[in-house]
């Protein structure tokens, strides 16, 4: 096939390739360098309305679906997203490198985690709470990927809470494994290993919840005494 292409056309192809490379110099580097704080802030502050998210239920659904052995299972690229509500929310994707098959963040990604922490303490993001979402590409066992993505999302949440003292009330974590891809058209692409930060709520709404939920504990105490 290659021989059939006239040399002149091949040159045109090369020139086009060269132009594309020249015009998009920042694209290949983006995945490797840590994101800028203000880019994260401007992306995640575009929050509109809070959806009704049940994170615990989603975790359960991911585990159950990753274990399903049904013969009617669609191929990876045709799996419906398990948490479609998340797709409508402000999202920032970050490439974080972990040790193979573990949730251990590698030093080359410390800066990226630090930048996420810088963004979350910045004034315009202080009113919001976030979900750290882990994903996996389709390599290895589907069930293991669900669990590993959860542990990796937990690891990022833990670093933000323990190392940078971001309030744990503001951050939850969810591993979607290969039940929802960053790039659904290419389930095997490493792009799917990215960690996503999603704005899920404005805290003024949330801060009222603990107040409303506080009456129950005193009611429980007498029950224990009996």
């Amino acid at each position, binding site marked *: 096939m290659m021989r059939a292409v006239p040399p002149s056309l091949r040159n045109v192809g090369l020139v086009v390739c060269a132009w594309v490379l020249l015009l998009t110099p920042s694209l290949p580097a983006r995945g490797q360098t840590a994101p800028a704080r203000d880019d994260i802030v401007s992306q995640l502050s575009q929050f509109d309305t809070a959806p009704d998210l049940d994170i615990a239920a989603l975790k359960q659904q991911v585990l159950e679906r990753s274990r399903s052995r049904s013969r009617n299972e669609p191929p990876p690229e045709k799996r419906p997203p398990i948490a479609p509500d998340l797709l409508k929310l402000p999202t920032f994707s970050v490439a974080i490198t972990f040790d193979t098959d573990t949730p251990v963040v590698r030093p080359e*990604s410390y*800066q990226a985690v630090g930048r996420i922490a810088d963004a979350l303490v910045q004034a315009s993001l202080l009113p919001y709470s976030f979900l750290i979402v882990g994903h996996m590409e389709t390599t290895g066992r589907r069930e293991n990927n669900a669990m590993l993505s959860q542990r990796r999302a937990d690891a990022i949440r833990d*670093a933000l809470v323990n*190392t*940078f003292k971001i309030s744990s009330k503001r951050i939850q974590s969810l591993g979607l494994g290969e039940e929802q891809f960053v790039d659904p058209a290419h389930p095997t692409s490493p792009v799917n290993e990215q960690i996503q930060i999603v704005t899920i709520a404005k805290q003024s709404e949330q801060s009222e919840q603990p107040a409303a939920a506080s009456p129950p504990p005193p009611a429980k105490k007498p029950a224990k005494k009996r």
Partner: protein
Amino acid sequence: MVRGGSILLILALTSPSLAAADTMSFGDASALLAKSCAAEISANCRGVSFDSNRLKECLSRNTDVLSPQCATDYLKSLDAIQKRIAARTTVANACGREIVKLCKGSTKETSKSIPCLTTTRGVSRNCIQAMDDAGYR
């Protein structure tokens, strides 16, 4: 006169940068740790994720095998992170008047008043400095 005026102008233009944060950003502190200690962490702290306490514990246990650069920078970097976290509590003191009078907030819930403080005029220089140190601006 013209010269004196231009010197004043230069001073006025550069003074905001003089008031920049005395603390290091989390991103920079984390980058310093990774740059100076990546090899040591990979070799000696297997299974330790990005947790300042555990990394400090692991690296201080291995001081005899750390490069001189890592030995000085890991404490510098981890202290910088602590300093920026500690700066949050000084905001309540430095911005007390502004939180109550300008933002109608409470110094017990400083973080709720920060979005107001960073966008309101008439905030004292001390308060701005405290917010910069905490990374709020």
